[in-house]
């Protein structure tokens, strides 16, 4: 008690001194201690362009596209690729630079698209010998393909066109006929994925024209149109960029992958697998990511409860792209009605993740039970030796996988008896 009293007195005395002669005290401090420099006006970063403090880390975060040339077949990383026991992976065809979306024709023609380049290819199998032919070129990011009753539909950056009776005219293909072109022209997420729904309509993604922004009304949606290009309708909103979707073989519900925003963090957000149960649903972009947190820039005043939640989180920045339900008979029964998803692999992450095909096991009620790696090995020592884009089941139940870095298509088959399934 006595000590405290003394301290208090001393404090009061000092305070009084300060009050009497502030100038003298300040002068003394200024000489003894360096003054705090005025705050530097640091230019604040814009949404999606954060500071990365280290030039070495910057180098690991660059999104480097492949050169426009395919790898020679002997340079493909076939020996690095791993599949579960009983499965086998082989090169189906090579020499298709920037091989992207895959679709099978009714007569067994495989169609392959480009995103960075301008071509659509047909791969014809003649007794095990495969021939690759360009059936359309001079196209603008023709990533999206759909096939229906003899007609191939191509979705480019700003239009959808069709090639009728294409399998009968592979050597002399007609020019694509445009059926729909009501899209904004933007490079960012301007390429499309496309499919034919159980309602025989064309479904197409219309991506956000940015990494993160308030998208125009016309964007960040899945849209559907009739096969002649008429009657466009919004299916769902709040989609950043979906490059893969398919319909459940029994419930006919639409499931789609969606790529999460870049430059938020190494670990967030996850890419999503979503399930559409009602037309007009909103899946969160740009306000809510992965169903459970709001965006650091666009999410203020919003809540994730306003939006649909994903049915699975597919890893941060993994670029979950092409997906198909497996309905074939070649693979073991536990693969029936589950989903294969190609993960192109992260670029916006210093330690890369993905670069594989995963298998998603479903519950009876349409929810997701679990997922596990299926085809791996494209990621070696933190760099990609190939990057899977799309998956497509063949008539025999084997699975094709496109690789847009190597310009190749791989085929995964299963042999229950120990001998490789004959083709």
């Amino acid at each position, binding site marked *: 008690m006595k000590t405290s009293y003394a301290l208090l007195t001393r404090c009061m005395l000092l305070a009084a001194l300060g009050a009497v002669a502030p100038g003298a005290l300040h002068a003394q401090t200024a000489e003894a201690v360096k003054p705090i420099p005025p705050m530097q006006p640091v*230019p*604040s*970063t*814009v949404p*999606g*362009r954060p*500071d*990365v403090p280290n*030039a070495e880390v*910057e180098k690991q*975060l*660059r*999104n*480097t*596209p492949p*050169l*426009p*040339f395919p790898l020679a077949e002997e340079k493909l990383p076939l020996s690095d690729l791993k599949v579960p026991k009983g499965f086998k992976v082989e090169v189906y065809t090579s020499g298709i630079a920037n091989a992207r979306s895959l679709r099978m024709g009714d007569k067994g023609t495989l169609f392959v698209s480009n995103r*960075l*380049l*301008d071509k659509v290819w047909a791969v014809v199998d003649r007794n095990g010998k495969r021939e690759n032919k360009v059936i359309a*070129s*001079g196209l*603008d990011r023709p990533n999206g393909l759909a096939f229906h009753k003899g007609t191939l539909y191509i979705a480019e950056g700003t239009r959808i066109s069709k090639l009728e009776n294409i399998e009968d005219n592979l050597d002399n293909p007609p020019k694509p006929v445009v059926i729909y072109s009501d899209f904004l*022209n*933007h*490079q*960012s*997420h*301007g390429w499309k994925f496309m499919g034919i729904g159980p309602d025989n309509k064309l479904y197409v993604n219309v991506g956000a*024209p*940015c*990494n993160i*922004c308030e998208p125009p009304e016309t964007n960040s949606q899945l849209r559907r149109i009739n096969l002649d290009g008429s009657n466009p309708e919004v299916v769902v909103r709040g989609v950043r960029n979906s490059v893969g979707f398919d319909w459940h073989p029994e419930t006919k519900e639409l499931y789609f992958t969606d790529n999460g925003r870049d430059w938020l963090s190494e670990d967030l957000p996850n890419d999503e697998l979503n399930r559409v149960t009602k037309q007009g649903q909103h899946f969160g972009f740009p306000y809510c990511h992965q169903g459970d947190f709001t965006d650091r820039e666009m999410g203020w005043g919003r809540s994730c409860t306003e939006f649909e939640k994903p049915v699975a989180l597919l890893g941060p920045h993994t670029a979950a792209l092409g997906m198909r339900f497996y309905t074939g008979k070649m693979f073991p029964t536990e693969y029936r009605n589950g989903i294969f998803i190609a993960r192109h692999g992260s670029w916006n992450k210093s330690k890369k993740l993905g670069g594989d095909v995963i298998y998603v096991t479903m519950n009876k009620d349409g929810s997701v039970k679990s997922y596990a790696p299926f085809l791996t090995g494209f990621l070696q020592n933190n760099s990609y030796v190939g990057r899977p884009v799309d998956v497509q089941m063949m008539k025999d139940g084997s699975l094709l996988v496109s690789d847009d870095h190597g310009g190749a298509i791989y085929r995964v088959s299963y042999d229950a008896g120990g001998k490789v399934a004959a083709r």
Partner: protein
Amino acid sequence: MRQRVWRVITAALAAAVFSATAILAQAAESSERLLDACLACHGDAQRGALPNVPALGAQPFDYLTIQLYMFREKMRVVEPMTSMLAGVKDDELKRLAAAIAKLPAPLPADGPTDAARVERAQALVVQHRCNFCHNRDYSGQQNVPRLAAQREDYLLKALRDYKSNARRGYDATMDDVLYPLNDDHFRDLAHFLSRQR
């Protein structure tokens, strides 16, 4: 006066294209001759020769290969580039790209530097992370071009063309980055980058 300057430039361009085409016709097989044809319009690699035509020196090999490929495939239609590269084989494209990549880096623009514009441009570079892909010294890498000491008029044209979609990128990165930027920003950036060493 302005009209006369343009007439001279047009004449020079026509002459250059004519001589370039002639050179190309003489020896289509030789990368060296093909390179001479390039430099007829692009100048001595360190300066450039014509408005809106970039100086080529020290551009990264991948960037050059991709652009040459895009011209050949009409993914970028810019005359005379598209017709000059028509039919040039992949290996020849790569040899040409390798030869151009070895040319000396361009020299920074002459002429006065506007301090206010430089300051604004520096802030933009930080905000939009230009130096993330283009390197901190703007020397470029892989598929990303060198910007340092490039011609100011070409830089401005490239930015405007990316923004208006007149120029298609190989991938979508520039469109993404330029989304929030406008022409005032482009003029400041071109001024600043053309004066970097």
